[in-house]
C-alpha cells in the first residue's frame, strides 16, 4: 500500500504531523546560522569554553566520555518517514552508523564532531527538525503518550497542546537560563503512558461536564537524588490559559529556584520548600495579571495546530481474522499478544517494534534499521512512527489485515521480539560506556539480566526493569517495578536494587532493598525477586501488584537470603 505524498520542502510527509510553515522554517534556519557562528567563534578562540558551553548545550551538544554527543529533539516522539531517513543519514555520515533512542523520546548520536554539528543541524532543519533545548537549563523537549491520537482510552488528544507548548518554550527569552533543566509532559488518556508524575511540570487533559477541555496542572515531579512525585496545584485550568499559567510557574521558579547548589536546583525542591499551597498561591498571584491577556490561546490557533493532527484516511475493510495465522505461527501469536495494542479505530492496531534484543544496547538503532522502519511506516502506517519513552518505536496505524505481513518484515529485521512490557524490555541509560557522569555501566548489566530472565519472562509477565548508571536517573530506576542504580564504591561499579516503583496512573517511587551488590550478582538477585513473585502471586496479579500487596520486606529477604540486609545510603 503506497500512499500519496503531501510534498513540501522536506518531501514526502503526510498529514498527521505538525508541518512547518515559512515562519517555523525560518526560525530553525536562523538558529542553525547562529550556532554556526557561535561554533566558529569558539573554534577560533574568540569564545571561551565556559561561554560556549551553555550555547552548545542548548543546541543539543554535550561533551561525553569518548566524543561529543548530539541529542536531537523528536517533539512528543513523532517522526515522519522523511525524518527517519534523515536520522539514518546522520548516523551514516556523521556518526558510526547508529543512534540511540532516549527515555525522553529523543535520539542521540554518540560520535559526532563539534565542527560538523552545524551541518547536522542544517540537515535536520531541512527535515523540519532541530536540537534546540535538548539540553541545558531550560525548558526541554515536550513529551507525551506514544499512543496519542489513537488510544481507545484517550479523552483529549495531547498533541496540539504539546506543539503549542513546544513553540511557546522555544527560545523563550525570559526562561532561557533557569536554575536547572525543566521537563514538561502531557497526558490526555485514562492510563498515564507518559510518566507525567516524574516531570517538573505536567498536564492531564480532560473534558469537564460541559465538554470543554481543562487541564490538571502538576508540578515538582522528578527523579535524581531527591525523587519526588508531582503534586497537583490546579485542577481545572481552561486550555486557553495553558501558556499564561506556565509563564507564572516558570517565573516563580526562575526567580526563586535555588542556584547555589546543582542538586537542589530543580523545581521540586522549591515546591517542597514553600509547600505546594504556598507555591500555588505565588503562581496565582502572578497569573491574575496574565489571565485573559495577549498570551491567552485563541480558538483559531488551537484549530490551526489541531488541523495537522487529523486521522489518516483509514480503510473501512482493514480488519482481518487472524486465528489461522495465530494457530500456525506461535511466535506471531506471542507477538500479537505482546507488541500489538488496541486502536480507537476498528480494524486498526498500534504495533511496537522492539529495540530490545540480545547483544544490542537497548534503544540503539542502526542507520539501516532506521531506513527500514521508514519503509515499514510508509507501507503499513501512513508514513508515521513514534518513539516511546521505553526506547522502542511504534507504528501507530496498522490495518489488521497487514499485521502478518508486517510481522514477517519486522522479524526479518530483528525488530519483532515479542517482549514489550516484559522483563527484557528494559529501560537502560547509556551509562558508563558513553556517559561522562556515570558511576557504573548499564548496557552490559542489562545484557546479563536479559540472559538470566529471558527464559522465564513469559511466565513472569508484565515487569518493568529500569536501569540508571548514576543518580541522575536517566534510566528512570526510581519508577521501575524493579529499579537498578549504578553506584561508585572506591572506584568499582556496584548496584543498588529498588522494588515497587511505577510511572503509570498510580505512580509510586521504588524502595531500596539494601546494600549494593557487584555487577555479577545483580541478575541472580533480580531473578530471586521474580521467583518470590511467582511463588506469592495471586490469580491475575502482576509483579507490581504483588509487590504492593506484600510490601518491601519479603523482597529484602529474597534479595539477601544469607545475611540480614544492611541499609546503606550511598
Amino acid at each position, binding site marked *: 500500500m503506497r500512499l500519496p505524498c503531501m510534498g513540501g520542502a522536506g518531501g514526502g510527509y503526510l498529514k498527521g504531523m505538525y508541518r512547518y510553515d515559512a*515562519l517555523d522554517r525560518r526560525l530553525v534556519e536562523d538558529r542553525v546560522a547562529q550556532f554556526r557562528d557561535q561554533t566558529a567563534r569558539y573554534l577560533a578562540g574568540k569564545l571561551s569554553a565556559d561561554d560556549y558551553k551553555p550555547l552548545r548545550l542548548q543546541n543539543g551538544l554535550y561533551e561525553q566520555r569518548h566524543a561529543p554527543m548530539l541529542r536531537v529533539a523528536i517533539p512528543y516522539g513523532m517522526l515522519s518517514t522523511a525524518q527517519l531517513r534523515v536520522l539514518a543519514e546522520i548516523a551514516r555520515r556523521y556518526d558510526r552508523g547508529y543512534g540511540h533512542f532516549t527515555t525522553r523520546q529523543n535520539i542521540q548520536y554518540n560520535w559526532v564532531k563539534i565542527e560538523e554539528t552545524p551541518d547536522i543541524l542544517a540537515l535536520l532543519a531541512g527535515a523540519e527538525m532541530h536540537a534546540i533545548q535538548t539540553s541545558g537549563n531550560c525548558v526541554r523537549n515536550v513529551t507525551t503518550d506514544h499512543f496519542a491520537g489513537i488510544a481507545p482510552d484517550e479523552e483529549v488528544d495531547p498533541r496540539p497542546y504539546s506543539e503549542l507548548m513546544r513553540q511557546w518554550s522555544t527560545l523563550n527569552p525570559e526562561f532561557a537560563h533557569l536554575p536547572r533543566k525543566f521537563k514538561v509532559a502531557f497526558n490526555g488518556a485514562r492510563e498515564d503512558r507518559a510518566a507525567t508524575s516524574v516531570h517538573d511540570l505536567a498536564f492531564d487533559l480532560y473534558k469537564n461536564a460541559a465538554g470543554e477541555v481543562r487541564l490538571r496542572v502538576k508540578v515538582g515531579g522528578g527523579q535524581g537524588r531527591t525523587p519526588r512525585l508531582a503534586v497537583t496545584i490546579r485542577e481545572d485550568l481552561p486550555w486557553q490559559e495553558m501558556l499564561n499559567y506556565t509563564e507564572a510557574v516558570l517565573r516563580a521558579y526562575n526567580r526563586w529556584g535555588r542556584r547555589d547548589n546543582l542538586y537542589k536546583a530543580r523545581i521540586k525542591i522549591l515546591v517542597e520548600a514553600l509547600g505546594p499551597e504556598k507555591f500555588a498561591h505565588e503562581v496565582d498571584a502572578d497569573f491574575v495579571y496574565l489571565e485573559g491577556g495577549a498570551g491567552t490561546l485563541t480558538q*483559531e490557533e488551537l484549530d490551526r495546530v489541531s488541523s495537522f493532527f487529523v486521522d489518516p484516511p483509514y480503510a473501512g475493510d482493514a480488519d482481518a481474522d487472524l486465528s489461522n495465522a495465530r494457530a500456525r505461527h506461535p511466535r506471531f501469536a506471542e507477538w500479537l499478544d505482546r507488541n500489538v495494542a488496541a486502536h480507537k479505530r476498528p480494524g486498526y492496531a498500534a504495533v511496537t517494534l522492539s529495540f530490545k534484543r540480545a547483544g544490542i544496547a537497548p534503544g540503539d538503532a542502526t542507520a539501516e534499521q532506521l531506513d527500514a522502519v521508514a519503509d515499514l511506516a510508509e507501507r503499513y502506517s501512513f508514513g508515521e512512527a513514534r518513539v516511546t519513552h521505553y526506547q522502542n518505536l511504534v507504528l501507530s496505524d496498522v490495518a489488521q489485515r497487514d499485521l502478518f505481513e508486517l510481522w514477517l518484515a519486522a522479524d526479518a529485521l530483528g525488530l519483532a521480539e515479542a517482549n514489550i512490557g516484559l522483563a527484557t524490555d528494559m529501560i537502560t541509560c547509556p551509562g558508563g560506556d558513553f556517559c561522562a557522569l556515570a558511576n557504573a555501566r548499564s548496557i552490559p548489566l542489562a545484557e546479563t539480566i536479559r540472559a538470566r530472565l529471558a527464559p522465564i519472562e513469559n511466565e513472569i509477565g508484565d515487569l518493568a526493569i529500569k536501569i540508571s548508571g548514576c543518580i541522575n536517573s536517566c534510566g528512570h530506576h526510581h519508577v521501575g517495578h524493579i529499579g537498578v542504580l549504578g553506584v561508585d564504591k572506591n572506584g568499582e561499579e556496584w548496584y543498588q536494587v529498588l522494588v515497587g516503583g511505577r510511572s503509570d496512573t498510580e505512580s509510586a517511587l521504588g524502595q531500596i532493598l539494601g546494600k549494593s551488590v557487584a555487577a555479577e550478582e545483580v541478575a541472580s538477585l533480580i531473578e530471586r525477586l521474580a521467583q518470590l513473585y511467582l511463588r506469592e502471586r495471586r490469580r491475575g496479579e502482576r509483579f507490581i501488584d504483588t509487590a504492593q500487596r506484600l510490601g518491601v520486606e519479603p523482597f529484602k529477604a529474597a534479595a539477601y537470603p544469607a545475611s540480614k540486609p544492611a541499609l546503606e545510603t550511598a
Partner: protein
Amino acid sequence: MSGLIRFTPQGPVLAEKDGRVFTRFADWLAAPVEARGGAVVLAPTDDPAALDEHLSSLSAIAIEFPKPTDGRGFSIATLLRTRLGWTGELRAVGAVAYDQLAFMARCGFDVFDLREEEDGTACLRAFSEIGVLYQGAVDQKLPLFRRRAQALAAIAERDA
C-alpha cells in the same frame, strides 16, 4: 573593544562606556533622600516590586548579571517593564555577553554595558540573528499566533 550599546530609534548603537554610577538598591534606600541619586542597580535577589513607590525619583535602573547564565535578571526586567510600567533606561550590567544580548533585549533592556572581553562592533549583530519570535515578551508583546499573517507576509517580502 568593549563598550556600551544603546538602543536608539535608529537601532542599536555602540558608544564608549559612560561611567555612570548606579547605587545598590539597599544602599540607595538607606541613604538620606537628597543624597540618593537617580540610578539604582538591582541584584538578582532583589524584588522589583520594592521599587514601585520610588520609580518617579529614578532616571535609570540597572540589573546585575553575576554570570551570563543567571536568568533571574530576565524576569526582573520583564516585571519592571510590564507590571511596574517602567519606561526609563533599563541597563544590563555585569557579565553582559554577546550571546545573551538578544534575550536581554526581548526582556526590556535598552542599554547594555558589555563586559570587557566583548567585541562591541560584533555585538551589534546579536540582536537580529533570530528573525522569528514565537512567544510574546516585552519588546514584541503579541505572541506569533496573534500576528501570524503579518509575520508571514513580512517574511515573504524579505525573501522576495
